[in-house]
């Protein structure tokens, strides 16, 4: 029997007492593509970060080509030296330099202290020829297409004598044609005896490119099965498990009146016209995988990215949203998944953050500082913020509390349509429940509606009154959460667009 290229056995890892990986076994043959599948939070990234040395394992062992790696000295550098290389999106590349320069980065051939450009060029040609990649060594990296950049990433990895390549969602930013090129590249890499660990959500693609599939769920390796003739429905069932009993809270809601609607929206990120309507009191769930266009839709609705076509209407009246300031004026709020970058002024206090939108909507020169403090204090009590005081700088808050502050700033501004983009990412389970009740309370409070964007299908099913599924920038399904299942959502989300192929 052939010796395994890589064997990870009984890998266990906990964060803050929460077990993220629980005795996971995973192995990889030379020249094999082994797919790692699982929902968000199943433990895929953690497992790969342990392999690439970013995290230290709690227990278990990693054996590479029959040699056990010492967990004490295993770090990103030693992992790369041993031949474990991750191919991130343009992570290793310097955009302003040429392909040849990127391939020699950090190891330029020198003659008498000066870089020998001839040698650099020759090295690049050799590496690219060995990998049979069609890239001009003189081209600047920033001018390359996404798939060429990815090839170059792989070439860089190969030039580092990679034995194991980790590819995380490599097709997320690729067109169909580019995906085909990537798959050819992968075949060439395989032929050199290099093992590839391939992470993707796109099930059909995974069955096409993979040799074996291992499904992770809640930190356990559930099953390993051959990729090619596996049943998609079986894989989905393995990924989501028995289906946890959901705690849907049905809310009373009078149906009918439209709160916010869009007709034929399009811009450079949303190639085909997109329409939807949210009623008063409704939570419209929008789901889909990473790269499905959900965030792009949110940004278009909030006036961040400009529309090239389509109309919006608020309470039946047509509106133009050409800037975030205009959206805010109209009473539209936006909560981004990256709260630190887009939601908070980190070195300002809780009350300063909470009042920001209200101040932006006000007129006049002055504002009332006592009123600001009072509103913030009331808010803290009503949304259950755990802070030392309303003047505390938000940078010292936990993820859940930070998100509540962002939520609070839209609540105090009395906005009427709230666009929530992955509001529970990076937030622990306890705080999640609290965010859910905030969302329900908001939607239930009169002439308001929520667009609830999430790739976590459990929470989409739990919270939404209606669900839209997006893939590749378009809405592919509209479903009733009471009548649908996670399997169905996953099938719609993972379906590669068959319409125009």
């Amino acid at each position, binding site marked *: 029997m052939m010796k395994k290229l890589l064997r990870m056995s009984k890998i266990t890892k906990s964060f803050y007492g929460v077990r993220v990986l629980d005795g996971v076994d995973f192995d990889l043959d030379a020249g094999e593509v082994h797919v790692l599948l699982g929902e968000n939070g199943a433990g895929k990234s953690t497992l790969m970060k342990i392999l690439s040395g970013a995290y230290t394992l709690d227990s278990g062992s990693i054996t590479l080509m029959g040699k056990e790696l010492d967990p004490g000295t295993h770090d990103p550098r030693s992992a790369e030296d041993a031949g474990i290389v991750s191919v991130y999106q343009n992570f290793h590349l310097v955009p302003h330099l040429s392909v040849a320069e990127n391939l020699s980065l950090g190891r330029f051939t020198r003659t008498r202290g000066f870089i020998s450009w001839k040698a650099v060029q020759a090295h690049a040609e050799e590496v690219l020829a060995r990998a049979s990649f069609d890239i001009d060594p003189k081209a600047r990296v920033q001018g390359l297409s996404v798939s060429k950049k990815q090839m170059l990433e792989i070439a860089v990895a190969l030039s580092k004598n990679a034995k194991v390549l980790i590819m995380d969602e490599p097709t997320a930013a690729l067109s169909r044609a580019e995906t085909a090129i990537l798959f050819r590249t992968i075949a060439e890499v395989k032929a050199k005896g290099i093992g590839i660990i391939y992470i993707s959500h796109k099930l059909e693609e995974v069955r096409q490119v993979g040799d074996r599939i291992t499904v992770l769920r809640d930190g356990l390796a559930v099953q390993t099965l051959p990729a090619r003739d596996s049943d998609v429905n079986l894989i989905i069932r393995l990924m989501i498990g028995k289906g946890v009993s959901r705690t849907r809270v049905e809310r009373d809601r009078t149906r009918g009146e439209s709160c916010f609607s869009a007709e034929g929206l399009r811009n450079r990120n949303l190639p085909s016209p997109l329409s939807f309507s949210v009623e008063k009191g409704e939570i419209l769930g929008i789901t889909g995988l990473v790269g499905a266009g959900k965030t792009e839709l949110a940004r278009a609705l909030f006036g961040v990215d400009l529309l090239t076509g389509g109309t919006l209407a608020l309470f039946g009246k047509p509106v133009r949203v050409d800037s975030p300031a205009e959206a805010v004026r109209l009473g539209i709020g936006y909560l981004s998944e990256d709260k630190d970058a887009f939601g908070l002024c*980190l070195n300002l206090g809780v009350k300063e953050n909470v009042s920001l939108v209200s101040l932006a909507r006000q007129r006049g020169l002055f504002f009332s500082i006592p009123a600001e403090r009072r509103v913030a204090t009331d808010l803290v009590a009503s949304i259950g913020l755990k802070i030392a005081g309303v003047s505390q*700088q938000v940078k010292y808050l936990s993820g859940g509390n930070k998100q509540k502050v962002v939520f609070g700033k839209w609540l105090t501004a009395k906005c009427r349509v709230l666009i929530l983009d992955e509001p529970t990412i990076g937030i622990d389970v306890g705080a999640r429940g609290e965010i859910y009740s905030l969302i329900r309370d908001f939607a239930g409070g009169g002439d308001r509606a929520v667009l609830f964007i999430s790739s976590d299908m459990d929470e989409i099913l739990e919270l939404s009154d209606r669900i839209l599924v997006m893939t590749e920038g378009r809405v592919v399904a509209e479903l009733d959460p009471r009548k649908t299942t996670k399997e169905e959502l996953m099938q719609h989300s993972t379906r590669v667009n068959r319409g125009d192929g």
Partner: protein
Amino acid sequence: MQEVRRREGASAGSGRASGLRGILRNQAISMLAILIIMWVVLAILSPYFFTVDNLFEITLQTAVIAMIGAGMTFVIISGGIDLSVGSVFACSAVLGGLVFTSTRSLTLALLATAVAGALFGAANGLLITILRVPPFIGTLGMMGIARGLALIFVNGVPIYGLERYKFIGQGKLFNVIPVPTVIILVVFALAFVVLNYTRFGRFTYAIGSNAEASRLSGIKVRRVQIGIYVICGLVTGLASTVEAGRLAIVQPAGGNGYELLAIGAVIIGGASTFGGEGSIVATLIGAIIVTTIRNGLNILGVNAFWQYVVNGLVIIGAVAADQFRRRR
């Protein structure tokens, strides 16, 4: 278990900083302590230091730097920088001086100076927001333009005979309080109110802390930024009239190196070069420190050229200390 940890986290946070106002006050207090130590040391080294004459001299010298520093405080809190203040100082003074020599009206002259300063500020603001030139480069370019214009307008020759300006620079209210002192107090009181009690002031902090989050909160970021640079240009123009009043002349080469002193005053006061932090009171203390260093070096008979070196060192030291504080 989780509950306990969260509460600990919250109290650790509050221990380090109990809000915006808290930090600023602490920063101002520590700077005040440094200032007092400097005064004590200088008083020991030179009996002349603590005379009434010299203290008035320090206030007069402080006035100009403190005023420009007040404008610069807005710019730096918003996360920007204005390198053009020294040249704008000269050019708006020259324009005012020309208006005075042709109209003999002090009011018109002062108005012209203020408007010229504000227009330069507006130009900086437009460069940064509309053309999206980074503040460092945009105001560096304006530094050259304003200096060149100042020299062109008067052919490089100073404007003399501005005796009527003297009241602003040397006059005394009720024969006791120097007019420049009154002007600084008014400027700083206004700046304090704007920064702490108006929407504009709050937006200045918010933009410096996170411009993108501010924009997504509905703040018209560009408009606020333009306003900030206008304020900086305006007070720079006003400051130039104080100096013109002290010397009774206007020099197209004046204000040279004032950007270094004004930025120094703000940074020494504890504003962060990353934006979002700083206070107007701290800038005043910073300006007094900068002036005290100059004055002290003079009194101790140190070659004037060394003042540039010391100022540079002090600014670098203040920013390095800020970075060190952040890393911990």
